[in-house]
């Protein structure tokens, strides 16, 4: 059964999400997208493809304290799949203050959702003029950037280059892995934000950060940021499973996203995984070629990450 790709659109109120959605619904791109907007949102177009969602988050009973899902989305996605005309994609807009985790976790936990749809990418629209204020005011702006696979730094026409550089640096400090585009009026090629395969394990080929400057390795407590680790010697799969399981159990609420490519001892293929909080998907990826330099790489984006402890933990998984 083919799975319809789903793009999650986050960003503060006024950042430009609605402008982007209006463009997707009205431009002639030859594709058919359904758009799920939040109950406060209002699109300028009256369209059958727009569904209003009443955000309902609930906890799963599986003992995983941070495992919340969006019950309304489970219903909406099932309903959309009953339509005669199939979609090329579905976009889900979240409210300005939303934590993207429950949306992402819905795609990890619900069987029906997993069977018919797949999470493609989290796209975050950032208001270049107000981002720094939003970050200082609360956690959501930071979390939305931390979760992102693609970031639209929007409204670049109304701020000067100096402020843009400051905002970009701040974004990169939180999340150096996302694709970042500077936009005006959310004007972007749809191919840059749709069908990215950011959650597709088979497309995790390499994990390369996009640094503006040199690597920063001083982390303040409570700060949202990212850490990456490399291991040269092969990984013992049992030790890794144990370490990762224990780590997610304990630190899961603070780890927003994680991704990894592992050189498992004796295995002909790369072992790839990615997760959101405590939930993780993993699979065997591309085979190692003779010319490849085998190594393992691991990335965490989260809050208050302990570099030393993570480094030691990962190193202890090596043979």
């Amino acid at each position, binding site marked *: 059964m083919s799975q319809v790709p789903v793009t999650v659109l986050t960003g503060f109120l006024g950042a430009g999400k609605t402008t982007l959605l209006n463009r997707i619904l009205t431009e002639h791109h030859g594709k058919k997208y359904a758009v799920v907007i939040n109950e406060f949102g209002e699109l300028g177009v009256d369209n*059958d493809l727009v569904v209003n969602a*009443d955000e*309902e988050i609930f*906890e*799963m*009973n599986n003992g995983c304290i941070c495992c919340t899902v969006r*019950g309304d989305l489970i*219903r909406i996605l099932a309903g959309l799949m009953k*339509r*005669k005309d199939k979609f090329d994609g579905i976009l889900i807009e979240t409210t300005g203050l939303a934590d993207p985790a429950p949306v992402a976790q819905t795609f990890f936990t619900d069987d029906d959702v997993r069977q018919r749809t797949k999470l493609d990418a989290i796209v975050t629209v950032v208001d270049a003029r107000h981002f720094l204020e939003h970050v200082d005011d609360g956690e959501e702006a930071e979390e939305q950037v931390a979760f992102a696979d693609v970031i639209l730094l929007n409204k670049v026409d109304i701020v000067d280059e100096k402020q843009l550089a400051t905002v970009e640096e701040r974004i990169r400090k939180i999340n150096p892995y996302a694709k970042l585009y500077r936009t005006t009026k959310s004007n972007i090629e749809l191919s840059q934000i749709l069908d990215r395969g950011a959650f597709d394990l088979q497309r995790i080929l390499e994990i390369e950060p996009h640094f503006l400057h040199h690597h920063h390795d001083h982390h303040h407590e409570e700060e949202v940021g990212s850490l990456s680790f490399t291991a040269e010697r092969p990984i013992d799969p049992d030790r890794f499973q144990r370490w990762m399981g224990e780590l997610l159990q304990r630190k899961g609420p603070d780890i927003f996203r994680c991704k990894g490519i592992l050189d498992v001892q004796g295995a002909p293929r790369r072992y790839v995984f990615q997760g959101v909080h405590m939930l993780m998907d993993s699979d065997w990826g591309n085979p190692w070629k003779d010319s490849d330099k085998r190594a393992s790489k691991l990335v965490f984006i989260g809050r208050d990450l302990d570099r030393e402890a993570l480094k030691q933990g990962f190193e202890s998984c090596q043979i």
Partner: protein
Amino acid sequence: MKLEVLNDRWAFEPPPTRSIACDAPVTACAFARNGAAAFALGDGRVRIVPADRAVDPPSDSQPLHKGVVLSLIADPAADGFISGGDDGRILQIDPDGKAVELADHRGKWIDRLSGHDKSGTFAAVAGRSAMIYGRDRQVRELGPHASTVADFDFSPDGGRIATTHYNGVTVWNLKEATQAPRQFMWKGSHLRVRWSPDTKFIATATQENDIHVWRLAQSTDMRMQGYPVKVRSLSWSADARWLFTASQPAFTAWPFAGKGPEGKPPLQFGEEGAGLMTVVLCHPREDYVAGGWDSGELQVGDFKQRRAGVLKLADKSPISCLAWSPDGRRIAAGNEDGMAFLIEIRR
């Protein structure tokens, strides 16, 4: 009275079946009081098939709903049907296929309907409320609940209604409007609810792949686990002795006769279909049960004799709905690929 269906040869020679290509996913099906069948479709149409083959079916070319018809039941107060759609409308459809709008809850999806034949009442879910329509089509709103109502079921006498939502079940008394609703709490999201025909139990299926059952007299509850996916469908046998559950490879029922199911294994019988059961529905009066699988297979089982026969072989398109005719002689079914089936179990 015996159904001939359970003759083993049926595994090889299916009963007389009408297959109807509907050209849109079949989302729900129902039989009206007069025996006509109807199939709700993913493009807004409702296809009516009269009981008498000599009668011309009404034209179904005009969509009644804008979008998907999400729910369909027999009209409990007249010949005809009631439908609900993702356009937020509730329609009353007469045997000729003409529709009258009963309500327009724009922005909400009407994905659950249920009728109570004796009282002529039916109910619909509209977001956080259940809307009750009397025989005279006077409306009463139950709610709003704290979260979306996922499903509901009438008590056997039609005097109460059990709604299900996050963290449990609410039982509303329809006769004493002033009486506060009774809450049965269990953490998590409850997706389906079915009231036992002896009124003693309320069963729900949860997001966590469990079944939860409350024993009303004692306010005690129990949980059944071990399903590989969410239990998509629940059905009590007419004598209330068995609770049938989908999402297993074969017919699966928990025993509720005597002291109840505690400490007992579920009854499982029949051939394992390919894949998992998606819909299960007990016969309105007798010891028979129909099941549909995600592989497209249809079976009917006899739970006294603990065996089952194949009505339709697998064809890869999941069965999305099932209905028994009021006389218990025919089964209607539909699949996601847009095929509707009418199967004559007994002539």
